[in-house]
């Protein structure tokens, strides 16, 4: 079953809507919440992994967009800039999914986009601003 990691940005007037419920109930998607920040009168943000048949994924995406929810693919939000990285490995300890990892033989750091859940823990830890998030 196809899976897609997306970042959902909710305008403040939508945060009282049971969006997750509707994605599951009305669109038959499996919704795995990787990260969420919802507060009154603020833009809310959720990082979710959606799985379901392609057509249902597309319908779910359309439903969100029509409601006014910003839908971005995670890959576009997180960037590891290799030319800024010095391979010190400081980012390894906080990364909960090992998206940032090191090849122990060469001791060079690499970034596995598929594993990233955009938790942002690495941002404060990298002294060289090698990781950037466009929604920070």
């Amino acid at each position, binding site marked *: 079953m196809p899976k897609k990691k997306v970042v959902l940005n909710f305008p403040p007037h939508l945060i009282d809507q049971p969006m997750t419920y509707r994605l599951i109930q009305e669109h038959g998607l499996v919704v795995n919440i990787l990260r969420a920040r919802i507060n009154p009168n603020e833009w809310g943000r959720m990082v979710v992994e959606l799985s379901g048949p392609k057509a249902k994924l597309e319908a779910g995406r359309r439903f969100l967009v029509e409601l006014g929810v910003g839908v971005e693919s995670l890959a576009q939000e997180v960037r590891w800039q290799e030319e800024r990285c*010095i*391979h*010190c*490995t*400081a*980012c*390894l*300890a*906080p990364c909960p999914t090992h998206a940032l990892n*090191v090849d*122990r033989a*060469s*001791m*060079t750091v690499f970034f596995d986009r598929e594993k990233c859940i955009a938790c942002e823990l690495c941002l*404060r*830890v990298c*002294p*060289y*601003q090698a990781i950037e998030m466009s929604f920070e």
Partner: protein
Amino acid sequence: MAKTIQEINEKIRQGKAVVLTAEEVIGVVQAKGVKKAAQEVDVVTTGTFAPMCSSGAYFNMGHSNPRIKMGGGRVTLNEVPIYAGFAAVDLFLGATALAEDDPRNKVFPGKFAYGGGHVIEELVAGKDVRLTAAAYVTDCYPRRTLDTMVRLEDMNEAVLFNMRNAYQNYNVAVNLSDRVLYTYMGVLQPRMRNANYCTAGQLSPLLNDPLYRTVGVGTRIFLGGGQGLVVSHGTQHNPGVVRTAQGVPKRGAGTLAVMGDLKNMSSLWLRGASFTGYGVTLTVGLGIPIPILDEEILEFTAVRDADILAPVVDYSEAYPNCQTEVLAEVTVAQLKSGEITVGQKKVVTAGLSSYARAREIALILKRWIETGSFLLTEPVAFLPGADSGYVFKPLKERPWESPQASHSRFPPF
């Protein structure tokens, strides 16, 4: 079989010198034995690339017309204050300097996005930097203010001068408290959820010459992508710490003061760094060639990560309060595996010193020597050694006492 530096230099000139990195030499010594390897190997190259806060640079800007006396005035580079307590246009920029209006840690933890280290990186990268000066007027220096763009190539002298680099061994930082700590050793998660270390281990310059038998005042080195010199032992040099049977210090020990022409360096090897909640610094690339003068020196360079012990220190209590308590000693090999054990607890490790870049430095230095573009120097003096009695002292605080009224320059009303 003892060799001299002159003999090695002669081989370098003829393109016949055998040069290995501090990593490569380990296998060669294992395969051939010390005696045979010492006959064959002439130089072992080392490297390290890590944040070094006591780095800085001095500049001679040239004189404006009319002249301005920046000395004793207030001067900034990209809004970062630069020390001007010298002659009219000589300036010294420290790696940790911050703009006056930087919020620092007012909203904790501060970002420290830009400071002295970044100014040095930008200058070396050839970028334009804004120089402002506010000065007092004299008969010979009539100008009061200056606001101009400057760049490295237009300056007279631009010299990297680091009063402490290349720390021989270093603490592994952990956090035993219940809150996140933001330190110069990075972000430390509560209840020892990570351990941060900072050493190039078996590639580290002073760990390959633990008793300072070859590295001394005047040693030519790789510095910031160019060539520099060791000018002295560094600040906080502390050679008398506990050592292993092989002479490798088990605590932070020797340090080096180094300098070199900034105009020949590269921003690849001098990088501004921002430590959240702590401040700004400069990450410096440094590599030292070790001439294999005899078998003992070769044995020192064959040191492996597994032979190097680093102390695990709590940065919530012990470090801030100058307590010497060490929670455990771990090898660099364990640190580099990604996990160490402290007491009963397995702790994830992360580095601050780039081993990959350290290896690259050792390889560059090796290539320079092999191609004859880098010759070794004879030190003119050695560093204070393990038995010298030279120690790193804490500050002795003595309370300030108000001078008696009769002696005061400012008598009371």
